[in-house]
C-alpha cells in the first residue's frame, strides 16, 4: 500500500513538471499555430532568472519578478521574431525556434558555466512531509519532500487558472474565437494580433512558473531546456496538438509510466516513446486532439 502510494505520488510529481512545460507549448500552438521549440529554453531561462534572483534577494522576490521578466521576454520574442513566422511552414518555425533555443543555451553556458547551479529551496519549502500523520491508510513511516508536493499543487493550480481564463473571461472568449477564425475576428474590428502577443507572453509566464518550482528539483544547467523539451513536446503530440486537457492527460500518463517502470531499466528508458508510438498509431490526432488537425 505504501509502495503503491509512493509510486503514484512520484508519477504525479513527474507529470507536474511535464504538464507545466507542455501547457505553454500547447497553448502557443493552439492559439498562434506556432510550434515553439524554444519553449524549453524559456523554461530554462526562467530557472536561471529564478536561481540568480533567489540567491541575491530571496525566493519571494523571485516569485514575483521572474514571471514578469519572462512575460516581457515573451512579448519581445513574439514581436521581434516569432510573428514573422506565422505564415511560414511548421518546418521553418521549428528551425528558427530550435536555433533560438541553442543560442539561449550557449549564452547561459558562457555566463554561468556548464555545471549545475545549486538552487536552494526557501525554508518554508524544504524538508519532508510525514504523510502517515495525515493519511491514516498508510502504515508506518511514509515521507515525501515538501517541495515536490508544492510543485504538484502549483502545477494543477496553473492548469485550473489557465482553464478559467480561457473559458470564463472576455479575453478568453476572444482568444478562443481567434483560434477558430482569426480573419473573421479581424473583420469584426477586434485587435487579435495584440491578444495573440499576450497569449505568447502567458506561455512564457507558465514557463517561468515551471522554472521557479522545477528548478530546485532538476538543478539549473544549460542543457536542461532540451532535456525537458523533448518529453514535453511528446506530451503535446500524444495529448493532441493544441489541446489543454490532452496535455494534462498525456503528462499524467507519462509520469505514471515512468514511475511504475523504474525497476525495469530496459523498458523505462524507452517507455514514453513506446507509449507515443502506440497511441499515435491507434489515434493519430492524439488523445484529445481535434478531428482533422495534424491527422
Amino acid at each position, binding site marked *: 500500500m*505504501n509502495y503503491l502510494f509512493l509510486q503514484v505520488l512520484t508519477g504525479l510529481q513527474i507529470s507536474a513538471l511535464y504538464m507545466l512545460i507542455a501547457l505553454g507549448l500547447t497553448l502557443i500552438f493552439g492559439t498562434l499555430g506556432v510550434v515553439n521549440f524554444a519553449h524549453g529554453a524559456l523554461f530554462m531561462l526562467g530557472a536561471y532568472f529564478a536561481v540568480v534572483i533567489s540567491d541575491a534577494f530571496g525566493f519571494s522576490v523571485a516569485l514575483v519578478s521572474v514571471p514578469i521578466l519572462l512575460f516581457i521576454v515573451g512579448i519581445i520574442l513574439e514581436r521581434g521574431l516569432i510573428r514573422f513566422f506565422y505564415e511560414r511552414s511548421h518546418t521553418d518555425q521549428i528551425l528558427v525556434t530550435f536555433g533560438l533555443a541553442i543560442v539561449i543555451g550557449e549564452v547561459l553556458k558562457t555566463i554561468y558555466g556548464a*555545471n549545475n547551479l545549486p538552487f536552494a529551496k526557501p525554508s518554508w519549502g524544504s524538508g519532508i512531509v510525514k504523510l502517515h500523520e495525515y493519511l491514516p491508510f498508510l502504515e508506518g513511516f511514509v515521507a515525501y519532500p515538501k*517541495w515536490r508536493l508544492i510543485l504538484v499543487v502549483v502545477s494543477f493550480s496553473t492548469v485550473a487558472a489557465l482553464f478559467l481564463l480561457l473559458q470564463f473571461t472576455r479575453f478568453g472568449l476572444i482568444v478562443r474565437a481567434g483560434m477558430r477564425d482569426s480573419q473573421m475576428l479581424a473583420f469584426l474590428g477586434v485587435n487579435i494580433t495584440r491578444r495573440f502577443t499576450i497569449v505568447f507572453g502567458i506561455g512564457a509566464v507558465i514557463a517561468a512558473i515551471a522554472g521557479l518550482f522545477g528548478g530546485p528539483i*532538476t*538543478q539549473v*544547467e544549460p542543457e536542461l531546456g532540451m532535456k525537458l523539451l523533448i518529453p514535453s513536446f511528446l506530451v503535446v503530440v500524444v495529448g493532441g496538438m493544441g489541446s489543454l486537457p490532452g496535455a494534462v492527460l498525456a503528462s499524467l500518463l507519462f509520469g505514471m509510466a515512468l514511475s511504475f517502470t*523504474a525497476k525495469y531499466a530496459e523498458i*523505462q528508458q524507452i517507455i514514453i516513446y513506446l507509449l507515443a508510438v502506440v497511441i499515435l498509431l491507434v489515434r493519430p490526432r492524439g488523445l484529445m486532439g481535434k478531428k482533422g488537425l495534424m491527422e
Partner: protein
Amino acid sequence: MAKKSDISKTISRRSILKAGALGSVAMSAPMFYAKNAWAESAIGNYPIEGDTVMLGFNVPQTGAYADEGADELRAYKLAVTHLNNGGGMLDTFKPSKLTGSGILGKKVDYVVGDTQTKADAARTSARRMIERDKIIMLTGGSSSGIAIAQQYLASEMGIIFMAGLTHSNDTTGKDKRRYGFRHFFNAEMTGIALSPILAETYGKERRAFHLTADYSWGHTQYDAMKRGTEAQGWTTVNNLMTPVGAPDFSQYLTEVLSSDADILVLNHYGKDMVNSLSQAVEFGMRELQKNGKTMEIVVPLFSRLMAQGAGSSKIQGVLGTTNWNWSLQDEGSQAFVKAFEAEYGFPPSMAAHTCYCQTLLYANACEVAGTFYPPEVIKALEGFEFDGMGNGKTLYRAEDHQCFKDILVVKGKSPADKTGEFDLLELVGTTPRETVTYDASIFGGELGPYEPA
C-alpha cells in the same frame, strides 16, 4: 622512330636504377644517426619533421563535462609551458630526464579539440588532429565511453593515447590497447579501498541499494562496489540502471525508499551525481531510520568539482574515493598547485592533475627512449616506476598500462569545517598501492602488437 624509343627506354631504365640506388642510400642514412633506427618505420605521425612536436588535447569543451574539460585544458597548457621552460612538477618528478627545453630538443606545441562529451564527436576531432595537425600524442577526455573510443582510434592509427579522466575498469581491462595508457585510478581500486572503510564506519550488517549510470563506467563501478562491500559482509538489495543525464531521479529514489535498504550507493558521476545526491537528501535519506540504523549515502567516485556543485551542506560526511586533491602536502602536489594557482588564481581539480601528469609522463618516456618512435616510447612507459607527482610511488604496470598508486578515501566537509570556497573534501584514509593492486588478467582483453597492422 624505333630508334628513338629504344633510347628513351634505356634512359628510363638507367634513371630508375639511379633513383633506386639513391633511395636505398637515403633510407639507410638514419641508421647512423638515430638510436634503434634500424628497426624504425613510419608509424602514425612518426617521424616528426621540423623542430616542433605537436600534442593533441581532446577535451570536452561543450556538453555535460565542459567545466571539467576547461580545467583539463588549463592543466595541459601549463604542462606545455613547463616542458618548454621548466617549473612545476619538473622539479619534483623523478626519475626524470625532462630538461625544461622541450622534448628531445624539439619545442612543444599543441592543438585543441572538442569531444562535446560524445564518443563520435571525440573520434572525429581526434582523427582531424591526427591527420591534419600531425599530432604525435593524443590525450584528454572525460568519461570512459569517450576515452575507450579514442583509445581504439589512436591505436589503429599508431598514435599514443594518454587517457585523461576515465575510471571504468574497461579502459585498462577488456578494452586495453598497446597504445593506451591510464594514470587515473579505476573502479576496482575504488571498491578495494572504500569497502573496508565503509564497513568500519557504518558496520558490517548493512543492506545496500545501488543506483548506477547506465554505461561502461557505471557497470564496472557497480560490479566493483558490490564485490567489495559483500566481502565485508554487506548485502546488496538491488541495483537500478539510470540513464545518463537524467534531470530527475525521483522514480528511482521512490524504489529505494520502498526497499529495506539502509545504504544508498550512487554510482553516478558529474552532474548525475550532483543531481541524484541532492535529490536523495531532499527525500530525507540522510535522516531516515531503516532497520534501526540511520540511512547513509555513499559516492564511490568523488571529486571536488562535484562536491562544489552539490554544496557542502549535502555532502558533509559522505564517503568516497578520489584520485588526487589539491590539499595534499607532498612536494609534487604542492609544486603543481602553486604553479596552477599562480597562473589561474584557483586550485586545480583531480581531472587537471591527471592530465598534467600524463603529459609529463609521455614527454619523459620520449626522453628515456631517445626517440618519438611509438613502440620505443611505449616500452619506456611500460613498467616505469616514478615518484614526485602526488600519491607517492607509482607504477605504470606493463601488463595493462594501468598506474598503481595509493588511493585516497575522502569525506565531504561540513560547512562549518570549510576553510575556503575550494576546501570541500577531508582525507580520511590512504589505501596503500600494494592493497589496491589486483591481478592484471581478471578483466581479460589484449594489448595487441607494438606496431599497428
